[in-house]
């Protein structure tokens, strides 16, 4: 029988010699050009990292191709980033340009450094999830096709981190992104009274609801859902498979803006609702693509250098964000969940837009 609990292979075995030698002794770095980082050690040694985009959902053939490139230029060393990019690691400066040429010939976009749009962190969507309200790979591909020039350049005021999660579970943890694309359901789970008694534990199902919308229905050995209280999070479906909530006509996408994770300058912030609903319109989600592009370009035009999307909006005010982007402000933008009053305006200071 195979050994268990061996843990992952040690990263130490996978570090290129230049990193082993300079580990913890890096002095500074520069972005040589979009997608090319140069790190210099106290020893004077140089490490070049060439960052290339990937669709995240990749075949073993694709991985083997990446390996061939890394063998040819990087002595077989590479890494992936926390945002699904590939990083080719080289200590030989003369190989950087040939590597870039090879990547270009194989149509790998190189970029995602500095003030750019980098790869979109995303989830499984219809490819492999049981609660998705939209697809993940498809909208990401469509959006990145439109924004790829911001990946391969560094012309934005600051970095723009876009993330997509295909439902409120947010496996993609999009809640702190400059721009978040979030799949949402809008109709309540359909209770399958025939299956609930067999596949669900009633107390667990009732307890799973954050708003207390689920009540036991002892007569049917099932549950009922209060339509006024349900906000379609799908948490009950995760514990009770007889409560499916997918709805092809009503599921769709919401857009959130202004979150960040880094502590640089301003504290980390949540993303806030910009657009409550856009339809699922496969295969290219034109409404979502247009909305994201409009927000990126409005930000690019109006923000000051180094301002993240959220910092820009905080400076100019949400009233101006809605005016500049032309996005309609609705009653859905005003919070009515548990901490709602903390987002209401408690001063007479505001702008006219």
């Amino acid at each position, binding site marked *: 029988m195979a050994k268990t609990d061996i843990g992952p*292979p040690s990263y130490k075995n996978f570090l290129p010699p230049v990193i082993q030698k300079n580990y913890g002794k890096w002095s500074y770095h520069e972005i040589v050009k979009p997608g090319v980082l140069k790190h210099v050690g106290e020893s004077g040694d140089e490490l070049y990292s060439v960052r290339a985009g990937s669709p995240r959902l990749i075949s073993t053939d694709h991985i083997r191709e990446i390996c061939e490139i890394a063998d040819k230029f990087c002595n077989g060393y590479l890494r992936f980033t926390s945002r699904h990019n590939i990083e080719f690691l080289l200590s030989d400066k003369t190989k950087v340009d040939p590597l870039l040429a090879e990547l270009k010939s194989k149509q790998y*976009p190189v970029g995602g450094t500095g003030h750019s749009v980098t790869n979109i962190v995303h989830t499984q969507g219809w490819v492999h999830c049981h609660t998705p309200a939209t697809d993940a790979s498809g909208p990401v591909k469509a959006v990145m096709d439109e924004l790829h020039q911001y990946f391969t350049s560094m012309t934005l005021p600051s970095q723009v981190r876009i993330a997509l999660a295909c439902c409120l579970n947010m496996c993609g943890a999009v809640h702190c992104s400059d721009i978040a694309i979030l799949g949402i359901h809008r109709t309540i789970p359909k209770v399958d009274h025939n299956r609930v008694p067999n596949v669900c534990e009633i107390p667990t199902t009732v307890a799973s609801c954050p708003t207390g919308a689920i009540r036991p229905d002892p007569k049917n050995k099932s549950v009922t859902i209060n339509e006024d209280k349900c906000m379609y999070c799908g948490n009950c479906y995760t514990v009770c498979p007889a409560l499916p909530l997918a709805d092809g006509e009503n599921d769709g996408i919401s857009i959130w803006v202004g979150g960040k994770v880094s502590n640089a300058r301003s504290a980390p912030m949540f993303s806030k609702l910009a657009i409550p609903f856009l339809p699922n319109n496969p295969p290219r989600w034109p409404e979502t693509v247009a909305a994201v592009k409009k927000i990126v370009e409005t930000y690019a035009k109006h923000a000051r250098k180094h301002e993240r999307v959220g910092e820009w909006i905080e400076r100019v005010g949400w009233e101006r964000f809605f005016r500049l982007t032309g996005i309609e402000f609705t009653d859905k933008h005003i919070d009515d969940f548990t901490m709602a009053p903390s987002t209401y305006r408690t001063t007479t200071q505001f702008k006219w837009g």
Partner: protein
Amino acid sequence: MAKSETPLLDELEKGEWPSFVKDLKQAAAKKPMAKDLMRQLELSYKDKIGHWKHGGIVGVKGYGGGVIGRYSDRPDLFPGVEHFHTMRVNHPTGWFYTTDALRKVCDIWDQYGSGLTNMHGSTGDIILLGTKTEFLQPCFDALSDAGFDLGGSGSALRTPSACVGPARCEWACIDSLDICYNLTMHFQDQLHRPMFPYKFKIKTSACANDCVASIARSDFSIIGTWKGKIEINQKEVQAYAASGINIREEVVDLCPTHCMAWDEGKKELKIADEDCTRCMHCINMMPKALKQGKEKGATLLIGGKAPILQGAQLSTVIVPFMKLEPPYTELKELIAKILDWWDENGKMRERVGELINRLGMRTFLRGVGLKPVPQMVKSPRTNPYVFFWPEDIKKEGK
């Protein structure tokens, strides 16, 4: 030419960005299960809903997690994905690979699975996307022989992750890779055998730029920081100024604490370090000129999570500064105490951050033996609904 079975997906082969459809087709050319995955996805693109049934318990011997059960709701149309389970494989810390190691994983997955992967999943694992129930055990055996192990799933410790840290970053205040690897190895049992109220994530970023989103995405966040003065190399500051950075506008004016001053005449930068909150902006702008203070360690925070159930939370400070050196005994003891407290008090599917909200931070701090300090809050409370401990109150007749 035969008509395409996937006209909608074919549209996504167009455009500049690398297409996942190309990868689906590569795998589909070799594997019937990948082909049926693609055909099922085409149906989803037509009717705008997913076609996966809810979970199902599958796994490998000795583990309670690491495999996500998945079954098609249309096995009649797509028999190749009747079962199509995902294996989460614990990635090498920092996502470093040699091509030999990656090819080994590819060989195994070509033999036992769909040939499709995510590099990587949201928590950091290598995601081996889709295989049949009967291949799970042999696939795991082969992975184990190749030196790989499964990651976490369900109500367990999830695969910890870390930023690139001292392997390639001059800003690393802690050895994020070693800490992450060490914790992963120390908590193997909690990772593979779900026994908690709900999931628990640990992420380590070596500085406040937080490249693994630890403050947003982990129940227990470890973020590198320092004490002491930022070292200034005035010559290098001047070189940045000469290279086109406007020191006053781009560095000094953007400092959130206004603790910096730039003397345009003398070309001299000053920092009032006692007011600095170590946000990293000035250091990000001028890595060659500014070095963090000498005493390095980490700020520890708790409770970060996505919305389910009570709403999203950012992690909050519980230990302003801890020195972190191997074997990280103090850190491991604190994590163990937190896990115990949560395990004892948490309801099913209650993340530790939500448990703290329910029982109160003071109860948590007492439970795990931490002393309250002002760094934990933005401000003291504004309401008068204060609880006192029994020992705070004078008893009658005493």
